[in-house]
């Protein structure tokens, strides 16, 4: 196989919480492995607080991991600290489209400056003619009318702001684009436009996507493979269709079952009750999902399951996924 | 009462900071501290004597240690003007200042909170405009100027206030036997009702003029906090649940609005304690403020330093009380710690 575009190995991010002396740690992201191939589009889903945003920020090198490595096209980017990475030419290769298009644009910058700032800094292009040419090209790519380029963000509609956010990210020609809930603040009719734009851009520019979202229906549209996180850990990875039709982890099953679907309105579907375990100093031998899991047993408190293959390209971290290829079965 | 001890412990850094700052102000600044302490009439010889006596020839950390040790023993030095230990002077005069500050706060709170609530319930009404006008004007008047205006109007022109010369007309009344040092309290304890009336009469103008400056921030924040509370989601819930308007206003909105109000009280006390210095000056009030002003003018440094320290300690204590009140109102603060 070719060198993956991005590969994360044993990535972890822990934050100290409460009394410093007790040394309690919040495990935001725990021992995560992730691979994104060139041109691939991967979805990352999970409930709020599951660490998906932290993981996205780690991969984008906005924050430094506590441990683990991130390879970009085979190069270890974690050799540089976040502060040093900002100035490196590799910075341009990963870009992020942020969640709230209103919040993610500097209110005192015109659209032009918002898009031009990363171009001048990361590509060292200072010639006004070339700069303006680049800005216009990025704006054209996202379908942003040129007359809006001299406007301030508060003079734009939500959909136009979302386009500016995307233009800014692609202006430096990244090879990996991380989309952090890019449409969650938009109305459905605008969301549809932006999703189509993103699909179109990927095809034309050949970027890889990591699409972070809580909405499985949306992720489905753009991604060929989906990673499910629960409480800082990856619990299931599967090709999109397989994840929808045959989810193996009980959390994924509940997640898929929870999608409102008029076609299944009278079906009784499994529901997830209770609240998640604390992410502060979790017991390393207990499954993170235990307590909320409908099928958990004592075994889940004695050893935490790890991600194991359960099918073609399909992995799940649960003791009770009947696996054909290994001897591990239902106890 | 777990959080009580936590809050109490929380004042320790402030106390250390206060002691450190007063030390820096007296020992570590440019100029010759010995000259300060020796007073304006000192010659080179007496300054050297003072320097040795105060240990100013030693290193700063040693000086600080001695300074802190003196404080621990209540040694604030002697006042040059009164010849008394500064501590005694302060203890004698502090009740007068506290009495004044208390009545000023009482006046400010009694007027400002109802006004703010009233204005918030009728935005853009006459009451609201009146409240805002009062707030703008109250915040613009220097305390000492209000004090003087009141004296001119109510004593000189209308002749309805007693002469602005201190806490009691000493010619007509004798001060009650000293128990707390506050004339109003002591006269009640002694059952001397005419003295109580006379001392209250003396208190009216100074405390109202001092309270005027505290009025503005309290009314302003009450109005804003009430407006915010009344516009909040949980008030909408209460309305949608059909709770009576009175209950929504008082037990839902007002209680929540009291949080920002308590938080602003710290600043209000800062104003009041500072403003009392000026008001005491205007009304010939024999409190610590007037004492400090005299000390500053006559370069009586030990007295000034003692005054600054005493006021800071008092302020730290008041902030502790405010903190405890806020904690009692808001469960979130309790659980945070």
């Amino acid at each position, binding site marked *: 196989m070719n060198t993956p575009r991005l590969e994360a190995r044993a990535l972890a991010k822990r934050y100290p919480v409460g009394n410093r002396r007790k040394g309690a740690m919040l495990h935001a992201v725990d021992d995560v492995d992730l691979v994104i191939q060139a041109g691939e589009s991967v979805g990352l889903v999970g409930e709020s607080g599951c660490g998906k945003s932290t993981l996205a920020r780690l991969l984008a090198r906005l924050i430094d991991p506590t441990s683990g490595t991130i390879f970009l096209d085979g190069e270890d980017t974690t050799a540089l600290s976040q502060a040093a990475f900002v100035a490196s030419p590799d910075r341009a290769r990963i870009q992020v489209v942020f969640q709230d298009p209103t919040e993610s644009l500097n209110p005192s910058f015109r659209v032009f400056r918002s898009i031009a700032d990363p171009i001048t800094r990361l590509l060292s292009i200072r010639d006004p003619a070339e700069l303006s040419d680049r800005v216009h090209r990025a704006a054209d790519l996202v379908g942003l009318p040129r007359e809006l380029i001299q406007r301030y963000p508060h003079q734009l509609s939500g959909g136009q702001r979302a386009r500016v956010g995307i233009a800014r990210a692609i202006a430096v020609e990244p090879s990996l684009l991380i989309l952090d809930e890019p449409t969650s603040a938009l109305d459905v009719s605008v969301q*549809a436009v932006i999703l189509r734009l993103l699909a179109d851009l990927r095809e034309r520019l050949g970027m890889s996507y990591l699409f972070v979202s*809580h909405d*499985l229906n949306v992720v489905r*549209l753009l991604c060929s493979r989906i990673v499910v996180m629960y409480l800082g850990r990856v619990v299931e990875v599967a090709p999109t269709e397989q994840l929808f039709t045959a989810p193996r982890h009980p959390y994924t099953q509940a997640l898929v079952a*929870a*999608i409102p679907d008029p076609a299944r309105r009278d079906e009784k579907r499994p529901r997830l009750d209770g609240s998640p375990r604390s992410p502060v100093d979790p017991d390393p031998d207990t499954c993170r999902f235990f307590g909320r899991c409908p099928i958990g047993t004592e075994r889940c408190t004695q050893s935490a399951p790890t991600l194991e293959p359960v099918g073609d390209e399909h992995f799940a971290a649960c003791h009770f996924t009947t696996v054909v290829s290994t001897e591990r079965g239902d106890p | 009462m777990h959080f009580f001890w936590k809050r109490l412990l929380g004042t320790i850094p402030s106390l250390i900071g206060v002691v450190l700052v007063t030390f820096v102000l007296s020992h570590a600044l440019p100029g010759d501290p010995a000259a300060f302490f020796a007073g304006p009439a000192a010659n080179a010889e007496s300054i050297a004597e003072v320097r040795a006596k105060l240990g100013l020839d030693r290193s700063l950390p040693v000086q600080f240690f001695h300074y802190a040790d003196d404080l621990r023993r209540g040694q604030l030095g002697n006042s040059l003007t009164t010849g008394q230990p500064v501590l005694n002077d302060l203890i004698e005069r502090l009740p007068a200042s506290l009495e004044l500050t208390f009545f000023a706060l009482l006046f400010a709170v009694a007027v400002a909170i109802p006004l703010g609530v009233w204005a918030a319930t009728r935005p853009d009404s006459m009451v609201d405009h009146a409240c805002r006008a009062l707030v703008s004007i109250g915040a613009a008047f220097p305390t000492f100027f209000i004090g003087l205006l009141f004296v001119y109007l109510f004593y000189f022109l209308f002749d309805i206030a007693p002469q602005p010369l201190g806490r009691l007309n000493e010619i007509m009344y004798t001060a009650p036997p000293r128990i707390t040092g506050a004339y109003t309290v002591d006269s009640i304890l002694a059952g001397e009702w005419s003295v109580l009336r006379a001392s209250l009469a003396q208190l009216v103008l100074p405390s109202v003029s001092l309270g005027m400056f505290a009025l503005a921030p309290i009314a302003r924040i009450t109005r804003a906090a009430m407006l915010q509370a009344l516009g909040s989601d*949980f008030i909408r819930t209460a309305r949608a649940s059909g709770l009576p308007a009175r209950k929504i206003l008082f037990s839902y909105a007002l209680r929540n609005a009291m949080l920002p109000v308590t938080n602003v009280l710290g600043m209000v006390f800062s104003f009041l304690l500072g403003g009392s210095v000026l008001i005491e000056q205007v009304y010939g009030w024999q409190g610590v403020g007037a004492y400090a002003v005299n000390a500053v003018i006559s370069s009586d440094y030990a007295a000034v330093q003692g005054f600054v320290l005493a006021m800071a300690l008092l302020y730290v204590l008041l902030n502790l009380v405010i903190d405890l009140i806020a904690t009692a109102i808001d469960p979130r603060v309790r659980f945070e710690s």
Partner: protein
Amino acid sequence: MKAPATPLLSIEDLSLVFRTRHGTVRALENVDLTVERGEIVGVVGESGSGKSVMAYAALGLQDAAAQVLGGRILFEGLDMLAAAPDVLAATRGREIAMIFQSPRTALNPIRKVGHQIADVLLEHTAVRRSDLRQRAIEALARVRIPDPERRYEAYPFELSGGMCQRVMIAMALACSPSLLIADEPTTGLDVTTQAVIMDLVREMSREARMSTLLITHDLGLAGEYCDRIAVMHAGHIVEVAPTVELLQRPAHPYTRQLLASTPTPRSSIDQLVSIPGQLPDLRSDLPACRFSARCERHVSACDERPLPWTVISPQHAVRCRVPL
């Protein structure tokens, strides 16, 4: 579920504007909607369509800047727009209850949740003070909050968003109202929690034969839980139909496009359709059909006022001169 002669709630020809410093916002125009007894009705629309404004008006809780130009809202014969304040207050919480989005901020942050439920019980029922606590705990237990005695003593900040929403539901159902208005009750909650909360709302409605008016921007959610759906666009209700009929045979061009732009577990990116144009500025002069500028079926007759309802079937009506 066939209704008796009079519906529980009927909004008739309601027009409402907001007078703001930047002009008059025509938030609702000639809105008609009924809710029958025991029925779950969904109101679906994008932000700014007026769906929440309508819900608040139904409780007589409209904003101070709102001005009702015409129409009425009848709840069991009581005109919510004309009733005396004390009559309204006695109806709210007792007969009509409401739950909101962001349940954490919808609860008083410094009052124990049990006391907040007790406040409502005390106001609307003849419960004795000594029984108050027990009754509030029962209300919590009814929405299957685990360990209700302990939760009674909790403050909102100690509970998760989903748990706060259950408390809200417990509070809303405490007096067994006949109508529940749910304003985006699951916005901001996780998908799994959303499913649990919506199951609960549906179950409670069925159990107590309570009617529910569900306000949501999520057509999928309304499609799963509602008996009937009303679609709103720019202050108009453009279509009302039983859920299955609306989803399968939308008659209004906007409804069809809204359906086509909503991702479902079966749609693909190529099928995703976007609606051209934007919501019109409600402060400007608006045409008879507020969708006309975005509509490819627009004909000159569309600009004639008034815009009539076209009946497709007994329960299916659409406000369009050229329905699909």
